[in-house]
């Protein structure tokens, strides 16, 4: 972290001064305060702050796309999701799950234990195990704090820029800006390795919960099938994602250890 701060200081403050040959009007005390505020942004250990950021990001997502108006569906998804999350290393979180009302095919997670999938993706599923697998993948992102890591990186870059402006309202602004990045992250996504990691965690959590470990590969295949056309809801998959086959390849060696036992629960699956 210190190396990053020094690099940012060099890049955003010292280099411009050297390059342009004049001093900028910078309040050194504010720079110091800003750096301290960024350093204190210890989201790794601040659960309260993590939940608040996740809640705000989720609130904005729900402001754009409402929950599907079906209490039975939402309760069902919460029961399945909470059971899967209970098998994770962060089972103490106050997990909340929701199906949002859009035909797009996707799922999201936000810091603190907020998980969403779209109605479009839900309708592609054919069993409770497949639902569990989708939720398990998203739970994997929260377990690994993938979003938090990206938010921290974004914040570091952003605050480096703010140093030049030498104006920052400390912690409230820190959180506000993180939330802004969070909303953007929902639409821009995470990096490829985070996805592969979440796939592996997803398979294991699905199996731990007693479902068939192959449920996630099955969903990936279904998405791959659905992507074999140019319909607007699915064509973007191939512009912004690893191909489902690539994700399956990434899972393959690890999947050899799973026998295919475990339940699919097609009959109990709540169908829309």
């Amino acid at each position: 972290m210190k190396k990053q701060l020094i690099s940012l200081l060099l890049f955003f403050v010292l280099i411009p001064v050297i390059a342009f040959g004049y001093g900028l009007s910078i309040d050194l005390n504010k720079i110091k305060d800003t750096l301290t505020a960024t350093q204190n942004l210890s989201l790794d250990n601040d659960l309260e702050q993590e939940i608040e950021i996740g809640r705000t990001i989720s609130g904005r997502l729900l402001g754009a796309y409402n929950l599907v108006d079906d209490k039975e569906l939402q309760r069902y998804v919460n029961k399945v999701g909470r059971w899967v999350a209970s098998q994770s290393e962060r089972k103490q979180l106050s997990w909340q799950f929701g199906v949002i009302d859009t035909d797009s095919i996707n799922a999201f997670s936000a810091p603190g234990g907020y998980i969403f999938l779209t109605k479009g993706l839900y309708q592609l599923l054919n069993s409770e195990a497949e639902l569990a697998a989708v939720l398990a993948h998203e739970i994997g992102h929260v377990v690994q704090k993938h979003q938090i890591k990206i938010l921290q990186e974004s914040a570091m870059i952003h605050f480096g820029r703010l140093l030049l402006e030498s104006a920052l309202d400390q912690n409230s602004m820190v959180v506000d800006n993180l939330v802004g990045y969070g909303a953007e992250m929902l639409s821009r996504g995470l990096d490829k390795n985070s996805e592969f990691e979440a796939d592996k965690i997803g398979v294991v959590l699905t199996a731990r919960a007693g479902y068939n470990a192959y449920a996630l590969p099955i969903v990936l295949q279904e998405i791959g099938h659905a992507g074999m056309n140019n319909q607007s809801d699915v064509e973007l998959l191939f512009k912004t994602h690893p191909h489902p086959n690539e994700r399956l390849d990434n899972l393959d060696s690890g999947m050899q250890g799973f026998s295919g036992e475990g339940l699919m629960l097609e009959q109990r699956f709540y169908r829309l």
Partner: protein
Amino acid sequence: MRKLLYIFLFLIPLSADTAALITGMVFIDTKLLDEPNKSGQLIEKLAAKSQVIIKERQSSWTQVATATNTGWVPTLTIRIISVSQQNSVDGTTEVVTERLGGFNQKTVVATFGVRGLDEETLKSAELSEEQLALLESYQVSESQAKSYARAGDLKANKVAYFGVTVEVEK
């Protein structure tokens, strides 16, 4: 699988006399069995890169047809390579898509499946306290979830992670 075919029928603009034909490839040496389980009898040994027609799926097993036989292989041994329309009248086949987009090399990806939400809509959205309250009202406790799992005969298992390190919070 039936649902999958419905999806195709809906998504691919098929005329009345055409049908979707899903072609896959076995990417490792695999045994074609007569039943969707490991106890099935061997019908044929499929070499890696053999092409098959995908017929049906049951959980972790997929029914495929080779040039001479039909049988079952583990789902994960199959990769879809193309979807075709087969004209049932004259038997001609037209490949409508072949791994659209393929393996792209972009590093920024969306969270689970297909990115479809409008970025501008998200950016301009106002936080909805009402929807957050609704979301919270659907929440269940760990014990409620456990009871529901038990009702479905689900049992928790000890399964180790593979290929990923997960830190346990203190």
